[in-house]
């Protein structure tokens, strides 16, 4: 979904340059499209023609609602896979940020470890004996 947004943002920059290749590969693409479609549709129609389509076997585990059943399955039977999916998403976030992050030298930021390491001696100077 993000991809489509990206395309809407960026696609109108250089739309004129790609016309040539489009014409060049049009017969090949159309041929692949039509042949694949015919093959697979022929197969599907032949295979599933005479089969009765009975959707409802025992799909209702805990309730009538599909969403509720899905949630139930996700959190009981597939909980490990669910957590692995979370890890994969975290990996995606980290990879995307690491790849695209550029450090701006003009930015002002705090270094937390230095902030923690600061002791009283560095900040505070006690001056005694100033009266005389």
């Amino acid at each position: 979904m993000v991809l489509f947004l990206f395309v809407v943002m960026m696609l109108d920059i250089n739309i004129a340059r790609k016309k040539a290749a489009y014409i060049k590969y049009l017969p090949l693409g159309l041929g692949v499209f039509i042949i694949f479609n015919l093959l697979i549709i022929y197969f599907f129609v032949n295979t599933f023609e005479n089969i009765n389509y009975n959707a409802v076997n025992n799909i209702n585990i805990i309730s009538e609602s599909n969403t509720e059943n899905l949630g139930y399955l996700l959190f009981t039977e597939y909980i490990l896979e669910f957590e692995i999916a979370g890890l994969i998403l975290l990996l995606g976030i980290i990879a995307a940020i690491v790849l695209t992050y550029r450090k701006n030298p003009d930015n002002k930021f705090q270094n937390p470890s230095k902030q923690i390491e600061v002791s009283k001696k560095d900040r505070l100077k006690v001056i005694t004996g100033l009266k005389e």
Partner: protein
Amino acid sequence: MIPISYYLILSTIIFTLSIAGIFLNRKNILVLLMSLELMFLSVNFNLITLGNYLGDLTGQVFVFFVLTVVAAESAIGLALLIVLFRSKKSIDVDDLSELKG
């Protein structure tokens, strides 16, 4: 009730559309990624259809995991695309000819 072959034919048409998109558009990497995404979506459609046909919710659960992998993949792909655009100032496939033998 709509026969199952209609669902499968729709998903096939989407899949072949994305294949034709990859064949037709050899210029822009973004459009290639879009076609890839469309391919994933048609496969997911197949999973849901056949899972429903077999009376099994596992197909729909599997679609969730496929979608997470697709999301991570497209995020990393877009990040790579941004890095590529920074170094090359273009996202055309023809400009990526360093590995040419």
